[in-house]
């Protein structure tokens, strides 16, 4: 066969190229760098790749490729650490892993969750490479079949996962998702540039809210604050239960699930324009829907880790397809990867697959090899790293506060990043406290931009076709592909609604008065109403229609909730308030006092700059909150500052300057 005749020699050549000791060495350097950067919450592949780009220029192509591929390949592997251990989604790829991974950690099963996640990643990465090796020849027509209506349907399918993640009171899930979508519309509209909520007088919001800040605010801050209040370790009883071997066995028992999710990951990753943002949610939804016993999802089911983790590494392989054969980056890190290829003298595009098939295969299989090394290393480390969950949390929290503040600042290098982090953090705390689905909010936010753009584009293109003839319009929107996706979406919503009560973050219902939940709902309703009002003032139809429609639907759900609150007694789940009992209600420290520590870091930084601010914060925290001796407080603070200085200097990053820096000129790092 023609295909085999072309593929085999190139494959052989590629394997020969990869297995040179020098290439393996560069691959491992890339993997180690990727692991070190990816393990930190909020810093991902983009930071890592820009770290190596200066060195890539002038390297021999295969070595340069090995370095970059090693790095890209392990980011979705290493960011699993923060998702599972801290409940902080390390990057878009690991959002869904948090849902079951973190509850497992709280039960003391961190090592098990980690090793199951890594073996799934490893497997997904290899499946991805195998599929790609052949798929790359026929991918072109497949990708071209995904027109905008089909991509819109994939986004809608992603949004339909809200149904299954909506939580105990489905209406609250709708409100959370609606708010997420609205939060995603803040700033300049993608099409006409009209401003929404933002104003040029306060330029920060003009660019919209960044995903890093939303992820850290909605997940990281509420979890860190909650853990810190209890003053225990992350693992509730301070012990490590099941070890990493159990995780491997778990994976083996679910190997078919893992295989299915891997294939799903490659296919969705292949579609350019989706950027992998939906992959892990769809994989999670798929895992839940196909499971027989659903009672443990959301409170620590190992399958909830295996599904998304199998898909997210496979997705990186899939993402190579549009990158290599169309020259269109599937994600931010792929965009830098294309830039790196150019520095090595290769221009991504159809001719690359045709003329440089050996190089193409080198990339594909380096990716697989990097997955094996990276995930293998992580499995071996998982038992050791999991021990962090047995340390008193008050010793970890200040470092986490420092790192997430630093990471948040990297999104636009403005003080506004830190203010936004605290503000979104407060929203996250309330969403968690009153049992609004945070995953639903996050899905809404992540998909908002694309949902709006694609909807507008489909409306425009289909509209002009319908004007010419009805058939032309139908030919465009009612393709077999879109119809199939529509059917899957409807099925997923129906199945999701039926099962959503089984999937919940909190097993027990705690309620207190009606006042606090009602006030929060009133605030959400007020914001939604304001967003609709604000959007209705925009002149350009294309820029206002989406926020208005989403806002009105959210308002409708809010009204229904308000009615429900009037009808039901104060003990109904609709009045859920975590402060009324359980871990949070019985915590040793107050909510606001604990949050004030983060606020103090931000305030000190804005006065004296980040390095001075963080130094004072760390010393103060270790001395007065963690109650260490002066000597140990100083040592612990010095270690933290030393680490962040090393990180910033090697990544070439700046620190937030404060008021002091506006008057006094200081040398780096105090600048």
């Amino acid at each position, binding site marked *: 066969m023609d295909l085999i005749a072309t593929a085999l020699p190139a494959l052989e050549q590629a394997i020969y190229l990869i297995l040179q000791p020098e290439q393996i060495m560069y691959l491992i350097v890339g993997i180690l760098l990727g692991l070190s950067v990816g393990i930190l919450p909020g810093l991902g592949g983009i930071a890592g790749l820009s770290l190596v780009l200066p060195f890539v220029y002038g390297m021999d192509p295969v070595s340069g490729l090995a370095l970059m591929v090693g790095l890209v390949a392990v980011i979705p592997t290493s960011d699993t650490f923060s998702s599972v251990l801290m409940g902080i989604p390390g990057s878009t790829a690991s959002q869904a892993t948090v849902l079951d991974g973190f509850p497992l950690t709280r039960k003391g099963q961190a090592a098990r969750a980690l090793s199951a996640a890594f073996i799934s990643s490893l497997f997904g990465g290899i499946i991805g490479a195998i599929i790609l090796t052949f798929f790359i020849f026929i991918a072109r027509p497949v990708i*071209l079949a995904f027109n905008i209506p089909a991509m819109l349907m994939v986004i809608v399918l992603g949004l339909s996962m809200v149904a299954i993640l909506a939580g105990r009171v489905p209406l609250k899930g709708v409100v959370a998702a609606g708010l997420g979508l609205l939060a995603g519309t803040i700033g300049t509209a993608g099409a*006409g540039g009209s401003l929404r909520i933002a104003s040029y007088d306060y330029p920060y919001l003009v660019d919209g809210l960044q995903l890093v800040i939303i992820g850290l605010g909605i997940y990281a801050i509420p979890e860190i604050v909650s853990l810190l209040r209890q003053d225990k370790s992350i693992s509730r009883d301070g012990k490590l239960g099941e070890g990493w071997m159990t995780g491997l066995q778990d994976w083996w028992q679910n190997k078919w699930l893992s295989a299915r999710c891997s294939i799903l990951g490659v296919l969705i990753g292949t579609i350019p324009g989706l950027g992998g943002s939906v992959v892990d949610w769809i994989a999670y939804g798929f895992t839940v829907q196909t499971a027989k016993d659903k009672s443990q999802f959301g409170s620590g089911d190992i399958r909830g880790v295996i599904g998304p983790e199998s898909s997210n590494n496979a997705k990186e392989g899939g993402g190579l397809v549009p990158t290599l054969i169309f020259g269109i980056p599937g994600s931010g890190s792929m965009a830098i990867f294309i830039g790196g290829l150019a520095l090595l003298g290769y221009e991504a595009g159809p001719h690359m697959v045709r003329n440089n098939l050996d190089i193409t295969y080198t990339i594909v299989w380096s990716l697989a090899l990097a997955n094996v090394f990276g995930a293998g290393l992580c499995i071996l480390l998982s038992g050791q790293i999991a021990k962090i969950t047995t340390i008193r949390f008050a010793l970890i929290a200040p470092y986490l506060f420092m790192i997430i503040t630093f990471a948040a600042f990297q999104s636009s290098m403005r003080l506004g990043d830190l203010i936004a982090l605290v503000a979104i953090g407060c929203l996250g705390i309330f969403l968690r406290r009153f049992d609004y689905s945070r995953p639903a909010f996050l899905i809404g936010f992540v998909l908002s931009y694309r949902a709006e753009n694609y909807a507008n584009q489909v409306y425009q293109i289909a509209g002009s076709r319908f004007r010419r003839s009805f058939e032309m319009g139908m030919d465009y929107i009612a393709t077999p592909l879109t119809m199939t996706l529509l059917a899957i979406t409807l099925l997923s919503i129906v199945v999701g609604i039926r099962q959503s009560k089984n999937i919940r973050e909190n097993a027990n219902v705690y309620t207190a008065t009606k006042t606090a939940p009602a006030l929060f709902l009133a605030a959400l309703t007020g914001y939604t109403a304001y967003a609709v009002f604000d959007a209705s003032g925009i002149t350009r139809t294309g820029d206002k229609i989406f926020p208005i429609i989403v806002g009105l639907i959210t308002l409708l759900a809010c009204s229904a909730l308000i009615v429900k609150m009037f009808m039901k007694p104060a003990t109904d789940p609709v009045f859920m308030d975590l402060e009324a009992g359980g871990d949070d209600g019985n915590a040793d420290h107050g909510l606001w006092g604990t949050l004030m520590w983060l606020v103090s870091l931000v305030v000190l930084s804005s006065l004296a700059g980040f390095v001075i601010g963080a130094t004072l914060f760390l010393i103060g925290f270790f001395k007065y909150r963690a109650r260490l001796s002066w000597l140990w407080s100083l040592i612990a603070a010095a270690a933290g500052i030393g680490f962040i200085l090393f990180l910033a200097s090697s990544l070439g990053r700046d620190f937030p300057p404060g008021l002091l820096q506006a008057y006094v000129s200081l040398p780096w790092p105090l600048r």
Partner: protein
Amino acid sequence: MISTKSRTRAFLGAVAATAMAAAMPTASAADVSFAGQTVDFTIPFSETGGSARWAQFYAPLLSEHLPGNPTVVVRYRPGGGSTTGANWFQDNQQLNDGTQIFGTSGSTQFPYLLGDPRVRYEYQDWIPLLGSGVGGVAYLSGDLADKWDGTGDNLQDEFFMYGSQGATSLDLVALLAFKLIGLDVEPIFGVEGRGDGRLMFERGETNLDYQTTPAYISNVQPMVDQGLAVPLFAWGSLDDDGNIVRDPTFPDIPSFAEVCEANSVCDTDSLGFEAWQAFFTAGFPAQKLIYLPGTASDEVVEAYREGLRDLMARDDFTEISEAALGIYPQLIDNGARNAHRLATTISPEAKQYVLDWLEEDYQITLD
């Protein structure tokens, strides 16, 4: 040819002025050394765009050719369609020792030319060091090949769709060109990059598109060979006198100026064409510029100019720059100054013409 002439005159004036300046004794760069220092090469974009690629290409080469071989680090200050970073550079002009340089792009020039309210920066305060250009080719769907005769006159009754990143982005050049030759184009806004626009074209959702040179060669040329696409015109290049000539990469494809001349509704003497030329220059032949802060000492400026001269004189420069930059001239010294001048000036009438057009056709206002 009033408008073109006045621009040419301005250009020649600039040449004369810089020639005089060159004749005067210049500061000596010999005493300047950046040994052990770090030069921040800031760009107002994220790590993922074309500008990052351009800056990453130049950073190690600058390091190699500047006296004392400083470490050159690319720093990213994205936001506000590059206005955030440019405002930041404007606020940090006091650094005069050459450890701070700034790279702009067409997306930085356009808001400046249009008077965007976000713009607090002033190009004329800065010192231009280098200008990098690029070209672009517009093409249409192969089934309309018969109706393309080099003028666009037979396409007036057709209906076109074009995937656009936004009317005030670099696409302004394309949209205005289509309007000037009388094409009925409905832009589909919200496309994330030219690559996505090309994909829409390949899927048959749009029937008109443009790509920058490298993407055209690697991704559109195969479609042209199969008859799926037909090139209309390349934007063109500027010759030493500031006239629009054919793009040297595409000697067989007419420049937009030629098509406009041949077209029955387009006129190269019109205000519309003058406006197009201003944005074309800022968006393509003078797309990316490197600046020093205005306070930089003459010695520092001269050290940079000398380093860049050395770099351009390298025998292997064409070879190493081809994949990253294409085969466009990299302008230094007077060339950079002229590129800077042309990319950052527009007559008030031409500016108003564009603002009126944006509001009328797309309901886009800039306040």
